[in-house]
């Protein structure tokens, strides 16, 4: 071919190939000791119907315990495969497993393996040849769970198909946080979870005050959850990792649209040429246009306010004269999220991708009040009173990532990622009152009070991840990560009292090296060990952190596996708990500065045992975590008459989290699901809180039991229900009042707040159920529809969310704010 005839696509391919040549030679030299009598096979695993690559799919060599998994781009390599006829067992969550006979001696091209989605367990012609999971795969590695987002629709929900809500049904992840989509994993808090969407860090995962997560399940194809002891390529968090991979788009035009009583969403997959694809998805609530009963229920649960309040005067009852002009105000609320992903494969060895995400929530409860002549606030008939209340809450995330994945050599794969992520949370409640003389219009009284809280996080990340399959039993992973973060937080009260104002910048650099495989394949073929080390430097404290990681898996028999993991973890950014006894907490992000906010540390010790058959999985894991550098923020101990010294409002401490989890899962058949039980304890110790005595953390729950069932009644009908029970969570409460006679002759009444988290809410339990009907649409049936009826909190349990105290009453008024009661929802979906 003449050079001038090369297409741009081929030019890119040539340049990339030249770049890889030298690296390939180096790698090949490194592998010179390999026994080349054996074969290396590689390839990709994709969805047979859409062409979507399948990350983390399992490939096993039949008759052996050897296997591998695809990487995030669906690519795999298996070294040391006998030069003979062999059979590969390929499986992926939610797909029909494949038994693939191949002759490695005649292989000249990478394998292109296609898996078909499971459509029904009633299809008799399917021969189950390997493990066949639905929804959740929990036995892959220690503390690791894989979730299939496309199968989560069968679970009952309060409104939306929700990935994070579904994760809350797993053992070790608290399932009682209706007010937060964030995950409380093994005693950790949501900010201690590293949440990655196509490599970009997501700082806040809540929609609608946490009733739904910010991720549209239509845009996600795979979710990997590490509940602890996670590998060395992940860092910067101390509790867990949730790694979400967005869909890349199908090779044919397709899409889906759905609507429920809260929101509508659409997803479109567009092939662009033969080597590119585009996925677009959007979801928006229509709550600002139409308020359904479901929305009203959730809103009233969250705010404790009526959605259509009674005629109100704004700031208390008028005390004489003409009352303020009353207005009836309905809050304006909406949320939306957008996902876009463009994927381009210039060569068979390269994948270029750009992913974009934007999600936002907006709540406006502002109201303008204009009163004629009024007597409120000391006014009389000669006074005009004007007032307005601004009450705005906005929060959201914006993120974009660009990734280049390159297979330099069949055994060497690298990912280069550049990502930007931004989170903002703005709260502005500002009340303004002005009284004017009715005749002269001169201002006789003016006051402004309220709360302003703005928090912004900007995060730029560059990371390089490499995987080198050195030998058949040994894989080397290494890479680096650079993150630059800017965080701003402004907390002002009553227009002038600046409680806290921070503007921080920090950088961290990390390198990691990790080996995984069978250290003694002949002597101990069933022992798999992963060893890693992550080294981080954080400039705000000018220190280097060593983070050793290790996990071991020992197959005692074909069915029984012994597991263990150890790891040290550090976190340089924290979502600080802003304790508020009477109104609940409002948290904010800050960078660790080694002073007010310490670098968080955690050491994980995990041991487990699993017994697995083709149908059942029984799994138990015990964990112990030592925690350090925990931070709380409280105004509870501040002087009220003097200037606030912000340093005195931060409290740092440490803690422990420990527990044991049990899981019994039925993986296959018409009836699938699981029963899980977690016994756990989380205890914190802060020198400046609770007299230095240990106290239970807010997320501490002794017992948690979850039952998840999905029953396929026929090819069209699916019934599912979940039941959750958990011990009551702790809270801090004002307990008593007392008076002191001051020296100036006055008597002052004080409220005594009880011991930190010294009270317990009642136990939480809830039953949800859903019924789903699937049907073909169109003459050829190439589209499908789905109607689902979901009944949330079926027996209308009143689960207490928090208590509110009105100190202006005597005796003090106590109000229980409950989570959602019985809430039905119906949804309709079309896939084409």
């Amino acid at each position, binding site marked *: 071919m003449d050079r001038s005839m090369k297409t741009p696509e081929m030019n890119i391919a040539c340049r990339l190939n030249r770049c890889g040549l030298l690296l390939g030679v180096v790698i090949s030299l490194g592998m010179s000791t390999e026994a080349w009598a054996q074969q290396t096979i590689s390839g990709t695993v994709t969805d047979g119907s859409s062409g979507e690559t399948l990350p983390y799919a399992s490939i096993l060599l039949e008759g052996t315990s050897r296997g591998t998994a695809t990487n995030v781009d669906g690519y795999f390599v298996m070294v040391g495969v006998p030069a003979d006829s062999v059979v590969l067992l390929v499986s992926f969550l939610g797909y029909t497993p494949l038994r693939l006979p191949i002759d490695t001696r005649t292989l000249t091209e990478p394998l292109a393996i296609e898996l078909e989605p499971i459509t029904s367990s009633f299809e008799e012609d399917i021969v189950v040849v390997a493990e066949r999971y639905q929804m959740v795969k929990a036995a892959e590695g220690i503390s690791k769970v894989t979730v299939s987002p496309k199968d989560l629709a069968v679970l009952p929900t309060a409104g939306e198909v929700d990935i994070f809500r579904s994760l809350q049904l797993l053992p070790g992840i608290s399932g009682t946080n209706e007010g937060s989509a964030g995950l409380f994993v093994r005693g950790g808090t949501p900010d201690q979870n590293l949440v990655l969407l196509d490599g970009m860090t997501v700082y806040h995962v809540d929609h609608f005050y946490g009733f739904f997560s910010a991720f549209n399940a239509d845009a996600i194809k795979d979710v990997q959850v590490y509940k602890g002891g996670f590998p060395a390529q992940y860092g910067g968090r101390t509790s867990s990792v949730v790694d979400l991979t967005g869909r890349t788009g199908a090779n044919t035009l397709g899409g889906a649209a759905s609507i429920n009583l809260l929101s509508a969403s659409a997803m479109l997959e567009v092939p662009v040429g033969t080597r590119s694809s585009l996925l677009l998805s959007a979801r928006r609530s229509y709550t600002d246009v139409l308020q359904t009963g479901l929305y009203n229920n959730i809103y009233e649960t969250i705010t404790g306010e009526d959605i259509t309040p009674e005629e109100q005067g704004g700031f208390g009852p008028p005390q004489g004269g003409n009352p303020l002009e009353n207005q009836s105000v309905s809050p304006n609320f909406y949320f939306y999220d957008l996902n876009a992903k463009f994927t381009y494969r210039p060569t068979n060895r390269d994948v270029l991708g750009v992913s974009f995400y934007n999600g936002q929530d907006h709540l406006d409860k502002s109201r303008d009040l204009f009163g004629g002549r009024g007597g409120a606030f000391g006014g009389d008939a000669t006074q005009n009173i004007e007032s307005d209340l601004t009450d705005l809450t906005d929060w959201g995330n914006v993120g974009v990532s660009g990734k280049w994945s390159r297979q330099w050599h069949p055994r060497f794969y690298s990912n280069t990622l550049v990502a930007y992520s931004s989170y903002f949370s703005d709260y502005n409640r500002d009340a303004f009152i002005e009284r004017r003389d009715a005749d002269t219009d001169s201002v006789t009284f003016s006051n402004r009070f309220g*709360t302003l809280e703005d928090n912004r996080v900007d995060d730029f990340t560059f990371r390089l991840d490499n995987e080198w399959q050195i030998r058949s039993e040994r894989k080397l992973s290494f890479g680096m990560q650079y993150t630059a973060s800017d965080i701003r937080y402004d907390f002002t009260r009553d227009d002038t009292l600046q409680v806290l104002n921070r503007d921080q910048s920090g950088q961290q650099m990390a390198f990691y090296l990790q080996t995984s495989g069978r250290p003694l394949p002949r002597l101990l073929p069933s022992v798999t060990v992963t060893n890693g080390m992550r080294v981080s430097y954080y400039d705000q404290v000018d220190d280097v952190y060593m983070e050793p990681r290790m996990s071991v898996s020992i197959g005692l028999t074909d069915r029984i596996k012994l597991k263990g993991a150890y790891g040290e973890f550090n976190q340089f950014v924290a979502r600080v708990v802003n*304790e*508020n*006894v*009477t*109104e609940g907490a409002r948290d904010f992000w800050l960078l660790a500065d080694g002073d007010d906010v310490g670098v968080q540390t955690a050491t994980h010790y995990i041991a487990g045992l699993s017994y697995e058959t083709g149908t059942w999985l029984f799994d138990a894991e015990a964990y112990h975590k030592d925690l350090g550098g925990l931070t709380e923020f*409280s*105004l*509870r*101990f501040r*002087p*009220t*008459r*003097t200037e606030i010294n912000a340093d005195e409002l931060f409290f740092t401490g440490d803690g422990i989290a420990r527990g044991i989890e049990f899981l019994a899962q039925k993986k296959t058949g*018409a*009836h699938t*699901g699981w*029963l899980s039980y977690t016994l756990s304890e989380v205890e914190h110790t802060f020198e400046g809180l609770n007299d230095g005595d240990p106290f239970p953390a807010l997320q501490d729950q002794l*017992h948690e*039991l979850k*039952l998840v*069932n999905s*029953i396929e009644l026929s090819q069209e009908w699916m019934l599912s*229900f979940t*039941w959750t*029970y958990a011990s*009551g969570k702790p809270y801090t409460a*004002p*307990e*008593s*009042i*007392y*008076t*002191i*006679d*001051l*020296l*100036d*002759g006055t008597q*002052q009444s*004080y*409220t*005594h*707040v*009880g011991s930190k988290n*010294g*009270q*317990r*809410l*009642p*136990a939480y*339990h809830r039953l949800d159920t859903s019924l789903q009907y699937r049907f073909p649409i169109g003459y050829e049936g190439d589209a499908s529809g789905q109607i689902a009826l979901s009944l949330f909190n079926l027996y209308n349990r009143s689960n207490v969310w928090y208590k509110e*105290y*009105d*100190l*202006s009453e*005597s*005796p*003090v008024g*106590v109000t229980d704010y409950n989570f959602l009661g019985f809430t039905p929802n119906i949804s309709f979906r079309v896939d084409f």
Partner: protein
Amino acid sequence: MILQTFNAWTMKQQPFLMPLALWMCAASVLTGCDSTADDDSDNLVVVEAFLYAGEPVDDIQLERTIPFGSSDTVGVPINDAFVRLIQDGVTYTLSSSGTDGRYAYVGDDLHVKAADVFTLDITYDGQHITAQTTVPPPPDNVQLSDNALIVPDLENDGFGSFGDLRDFFSVTWDNPSNEYHYVVIRSEATDNPDYILPDFVRGFIGNFELVTEPTTTNFYDILPLELEFIGQHEATVYRINTEYAELFENLEQDSRDLNEPPTNIEGGLGIFSAFNSVTIPFDVVRD
């Protein structure tokens, strides 16, 4: 036969029965022990104890906190506590009044002096409450701007002289580090008091007792209107310890985050503090 039929039916309905049975089992067990740990046992001791240099120990009061939900508006006095003051290794046992929760030392061997460190030790209902305070030094360089405060003769000079009631004189002290002080103005009781204000005015204005709020300044301006009688008075300036100043700073509790008032009482609530003072006499005379 019936059993076989039942077995066949259960086999057929197995997908429904198993989870249902599991759920019913778990629900009955767990909700049966559904306990609310709302621990409302709060019976803390509130201490209100003040020592004054050079004065007898008789201003110590104990009462219990008022639990939420109680209809009480004042705390129940504690009259049966074992209360001791310890100073320099010597223990002084205080006596209870028996009715209003007040305790005093009846002996004459306890002297409160500057720089003395006192420990308050209370045993009550199995609780052990302690607190410590140090008697501060007296205020420095307390002075009056004049020897006497001259007030107008309202009855003879008429109401035109009311404006002169705004004239004041000052008590001052050295306070370079802005420490808290407060001022008490007292007048000696007489059988035939000579009031500053005419009877009909006095009836409207009411009581003239004067104890100032704590201040970090170095002066207090005494207005004639703040006083009651013509005659001998005395101005006492008290130096306040940190624990009382902090309590004063926290007079307001913000319901938005319910700040806990500071206390130097271990095992209880309230305050144990000491004061030292300097007193200067002055006359209030009619113009």
